[in-house]
């Protein structure tokens, strides 16, 4: 061991006479003090155990250094003596606890009278480490309009992939412009409803509306945000609000992931076999020898590609390269489309 350097040199501190002790904020203690010092208009800091210690530390009479262990123990002894006994500390602690309890009760009452959920803040309101500890806004319920011919398989894929992380609570509706949704969409609906919902996980409520619309579009709040068009962009949105494991914007390869998603977007708009094949070649190139499109870990890029391929029945296993087929098997285990 070695000796610690004294941080504060021992010299007299002259308290200026123009200073006066701070008012004690804690009312109950203050009122006690007032009772004790009822005779004087200004109450003296020495009446308060806490203030006493503070004053003692700095007091010119004591000439002690806070870091001097011997002195410190002596000071604690002193303090204990001067603050009467342990009982008062205990009483004080009790009081503080009681106040806390009162405060809690008060909060609960306010919450009840406001008609809020009794369970306290929602999961979506949790602070996140990833965005610098900022409080996240509760998520809006979102509406996704989809045409039954262009089933947004990504929803199911994400729902399955996030089974243990995040809940996507999907309700499906048929719009009046779409009397019959067909086999694929009904199958998709059934599969969606089979995924169990874990209430303990953070969640986002999605209303999927089968509608006679041109694009798959997402509306979160008509007054605050413009709609988001295209399935890959909805994947991006969900990737941003979903579980941390799938947020990709801070990853070194985020550009890569974006590029893959953009290829998916184009792939879905390909009309000819030729253009589709070239898109597949591009995907194959991007995948290379990696396990997934984003590297070793599955990312939303994989979800995007997988659900896009699922949506194009024209692409059979024959069109896929061996690497893509292998990859598809791996992803299928997670997404279970």
């Amino acid at each position, binding site marked *: 061991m070695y000796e610690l350097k004294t941080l504060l040199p021992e010299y007299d501190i002259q308290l200026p006479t123009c200073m006066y002790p701070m008012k004690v904020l804690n009312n109950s203690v203050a009122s006690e003090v007032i009772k004790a010092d009822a005779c004087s208009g200004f109450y003296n800091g020495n009446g308060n155990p806490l203030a006493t210690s503070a004053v003692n530390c700095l007091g010119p009479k004591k000439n002690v250094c806070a870091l001097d262990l011997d002195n410190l123990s002596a000071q604690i002894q002193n303090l204990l003596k001067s603050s009467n006994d342990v009982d008062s500390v205990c009483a004080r602690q009790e009081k503080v606890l009681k106040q806390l309890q009162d405060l809690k009760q008060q909060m609960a009452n306010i919450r*009840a*009278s*406001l*008609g809020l959920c009794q369970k306290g803040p929602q999961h979506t309101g949790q602070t996140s480490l990833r965005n610098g500890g900022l409080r996240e806004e509760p998520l809006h*319920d979102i*509406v996704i*309009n989809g045409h039954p011919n262009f089933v947004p398989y990504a929803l199911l894929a994400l729902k399955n992939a996030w089974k243990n992380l995040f809940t996507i609570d999907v309700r499906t*509706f*048929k*719009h*009046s*412009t779409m*009397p019959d949704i067909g086999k694929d969409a009904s199958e998709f609906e059934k599969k969606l409803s089979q995924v169990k919902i874990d209430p303990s996980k953070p969640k986002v409520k999605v*209303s999927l*509306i089968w*509608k006679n619309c041109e694009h798959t579009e997402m*509306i979160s*709040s*008509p*007054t*605050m945000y413009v709609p988001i068009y295209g399935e890959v962009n909805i994947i991006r949105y969900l990737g941003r609000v979903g579980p941390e494991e799938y947020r990709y914007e801070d990853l070194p390869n985020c550009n890569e992931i974006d590029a893959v998603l953009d290829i998916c977007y184009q792939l879905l708009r390909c009309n000819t076999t030729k253009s589709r094949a070239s898109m597949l070649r591009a995907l194959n190139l991007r995948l290379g020898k990696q396990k997934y499109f984003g590297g070793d870990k599955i990312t939303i890029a994989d979800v995007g590609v997988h659900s896009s391929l699922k949506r194009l029945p024209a692409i059979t296993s024959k069109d896929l390269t061996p690497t893509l087929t292998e990859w598809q098997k791996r992803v299928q285990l997670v997404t279970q489309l």
Partner: protein
Amino acid sequence: MVADKENVATGAVEGETTSKKAAKKQAKEALKAAKKAEIKAANSANNAEEGGDSVDVSAGRYGSAGLIQSKEKFEDRKFVSVSELSQPAYRDQLVWVRGRVHTSRSKGKQCFLVLRQQSSTVQCILAVGDRISKQMVKFSGNVSRESIIDVQAKVVSVPNKIESCTEQTIELCIEQLFVVSQAKPQLPLQIEDASRAENPDDADSLNIRVNQDTRLDNRVLDLRTPANQAIFRLEAGVCRLFRDILTAKGFTEIHTPKIISAASEGGANVFTVSYFKDSAYLAQSPQLYKQMAIAADFDKVYTVGAVFRAEDSNTHRHLTEFVGLDLEMAFKYHYHEVLHTIADTFTGIFKGLRDTYSTEIAAVNQQFKVEPFKFLEPPLILEFAEGVQMLREAGVETGDEEDLSTPNEKLLGRLVKAKYDTDFYVLDKFPLAIRPFYTMPDPNNPMYSNSYDMFMRGEEILSGAQRIHDPDFLLERAKHHAIDTSKIAAYIESFRFGCPPHAGGGIGMERVVMLYLGLDNIRKTSMFPRDPKRLTP
């Protein structure tokens, strides 16, 4: 009979002038030969005029049918409805058609009539020929609008579409024409004006409108417009679908009294009628009787009947008498069983209308341009708190326990439409404070209640709730609302003999039709509307 006289008179005049004009006529005839051949199609044009003017060749083939007193049966006359005329089976056939003269236009030797049958119209043509005399053409041109006529005619296909009629591919070449019922020559309103499309954007179009009050004063004429024909056929459809769907769901139709001894929903807004030496009230709603039917083990009931509200409100959506479609249903454990039943009934009605009344909807749309009604299946159910949240996001200050004001209600409708693209939605869990005393409070949060409203195009159409079926609790709630319990003693007593938990709601049929079609006034969907200012017709 008037027509007959006229016929004789004109015949005499024609006879005198024949000789003078004969030569002139012939000269003219030669010039027009080519043109006539085109127009008269089947007729041999050249020799038609020569003999035609002296003797009425069409005598007996036109005129008044006289008062039809069921003297003759004319079983050989095969009548065809206008809407079926374009079927290929009738092409070039002689058919009988009875309809109204929609418009008539005669010019010289031709007469064009547009014959109307409800919403369908067809063009008829009469041209002087070997079987059609000038007198007949003249007579036909003078038949006043809206008169009912019987015609025998040949169905002929036309090369160019007739834009002004619903049957655009064919026209009728009239062979015989009889007036069945003559209309007054002066009409208080023209059907054409009454059925003119309302498009405020188009400044060029003719801007002659018929005032709403004029329409209602002459409702019989007004109802003949295609839009009105369609509206009331669709209204019948709403009623029929309501009955069919609920019957299929195991409901029983009941009929409740309309003259009652005490006001059912509070004391205000009730009509008093004298009842022998006493006075009675007109039912404001079948509420009490529906609930009594539930207590009497009918399980699921509905009723269709008149409901009276003595509210002196002259708005676009209030009537003092309207048709109430009410239902009440016992449930097992959760009032959502009922909520879903009602919401599904609505969806069923909308689907039925969409699928089987598309022509009516199109006919109404022709005159009143509105967006088609959109809905979701299953229906969208939001909680009141969610609705309030949406309103706040849009910048509207509204309290948690505050009822939706009419502008807020409309705004919320627009917000829901923007987000979910549906014109129909359900708002669940209303604050207890703004609901009647018999509403069951929410077990989880005393601020809310087990009550719901349903909205179409942002306007409330149904308000319902789980009712308290426990007499003591009901008494307690009534006291809380400072209601004189002696006045509702009978109501409370009816729960003393055991009553299953139940919920229900009531709809105004006129309002549903108005909002489904997107019309701007409820008087358009009530055949003979009753409001504070109108008791006739």
